[in-house]
């Protein structure tokens, strides 16, 4: 009984194959999903998705969205997803620094909201590279 994971972004299908277990970051904390999980619909926060294939863990940075778990089919719809291995560490670090600087400079409600979102995204990308297991 294996779990079939489908990670979809508006651009393309990022992941569409079987996995053993996943750990998803949601708005209300992290949830682990094993085969034969009860049907759940949850919002996905900007965070890390951990995928286990045969004792090896992969990380993916997700930029917020929605996940539906049911009948051994997990569908994750996110705005953007990047595999940890695809992210360039230097570039991610730079993006993080720029995002932090922008947050300092932000004025007004609108800019603060945007800057916060950008910061969280940058932070997730950096974490995706660092956290390996």
């Amino acid at each position, binding site marked *: 009984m294996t779990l079939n994971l489908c990670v979809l972004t508006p651009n393309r299908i990022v992941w569409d194959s079987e996995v053993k277990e996943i750990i998803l970051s949601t708005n209300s904390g992290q949830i682990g999903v094993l085969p034969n999980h*009860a049907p759940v619909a949850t919002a996905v926060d900007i965070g890390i998705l951990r995928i286990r294939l045969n004792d090896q863990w992969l990380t993916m940075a997700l930029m917020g969205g*929605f996940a539906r778990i049911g009948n051994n089919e997990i569908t994750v719809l996110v705005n953007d997803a990047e595999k940890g291995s695809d992210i360039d560490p230097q570039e991610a670090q730079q993006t993080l620094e720029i995002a932090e600087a922008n947050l300092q400079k932000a004025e007004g409600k609108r800019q603060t909201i945007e800057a916060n979102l950008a910061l969280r995204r940058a932070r997730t990308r950096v974490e995706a590279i660092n956290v390996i297991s």
Partner: protein
Amino acid sequence: MPCSNLTMWVSSKPSISDTSSLSFRFQLNPVRLFRHTSLPSTQSQSSSSNSIQCGLRELRGRIDTVKNTHKITEAMKLVAAAKVRRAQEAVINSRPFAETLVEVLYSINEQLQLEDVDVPLTNVRPVKKVALLVVTGDRGLCGGFNNAIIKKAETRIAELKDLGLDYTVISVGKKGNSYFRRRPFVPVERFIKGGNFPTAKEAQAIADDVFSLFVSEEVDKVELFYTKFVSFVKSDPVIHTLLPLSSKGAVCDGNGNCVDVEEDEYFRLTTKEGKLTVERDSVRRETAEFLPNLQFEQDPVQIVDALMPLYLNSQILRALQESLASELAARMSAMSNATDNAAELGKTLSVAYNRERQAKITSEILEIVAGAEALT
């Protein structure tokens, strides 16, 4: 026509001849006799033929220019054709996401109908300020594409002014940017479309902006202006109300008609009888695998909160992709017309050139013959 010129030349001969400086005069006088309009730059003989009046050298130059232009426009047409195909693929790649999202949205909305859910993005407030999100292209040479959408935006702005509503413009695309920059309106932000193909990141940047504008109550309504791809020769600028989203999950467009979220339209590039055609298909999604025990991990409010931005994103991305496809199709057709015109012009010029060349040769021959006759 050259023949008539020749007879004139021959008839004028008796009045000037009888001297030894015959050849010299014959060369000069025909020039003066036949020059109808003032073209002082000619160094060779000029003749009138079918309203193209210039010298041999000039004609040659013009033919070269036209040939170059022809090559360029043809290349542009082929490039645009190749890109349309890629744009098509991008739309197809984004379909799984859009389909699944629609399905999920629908099933969740059904369950939420009964509850009193308050989602910020569906807030219908009394409208005081409207944001217009206008999607244009980056480059020109695409026929009436950019103008059409900008005109539509202008019409809407005039309407809003009449209604006494305030407005602000978010322009996507260089052409729109430069247009609105030249007019001291109230544009909010200017996005330069990065690269050729719209990515989810760009759509998200725009969506974030629109989202924060709406939620911080700076605007009460967001309308999306983009060009819908109908066929290779036809594209329609349309208005689509982005926010507020109707709580039923259905979205209404500018005329108040509701576009049911269950249906999905896409266009397909196929070959029918060897010619490229476009087929517009409409797919009705059946909500597959309805999970009756679906538990919500969080508050339904939070779930819907997470879904709406996704929907917003996919709407904007879809609009960008369709706009791009329309722009490419318009460019293809404009460049195709230009190529045909260039070919025609090249032909006309060639004919004129050849005629002149032959006339020149004939007159030289006659000169020689006349000269020879005069000597004998």
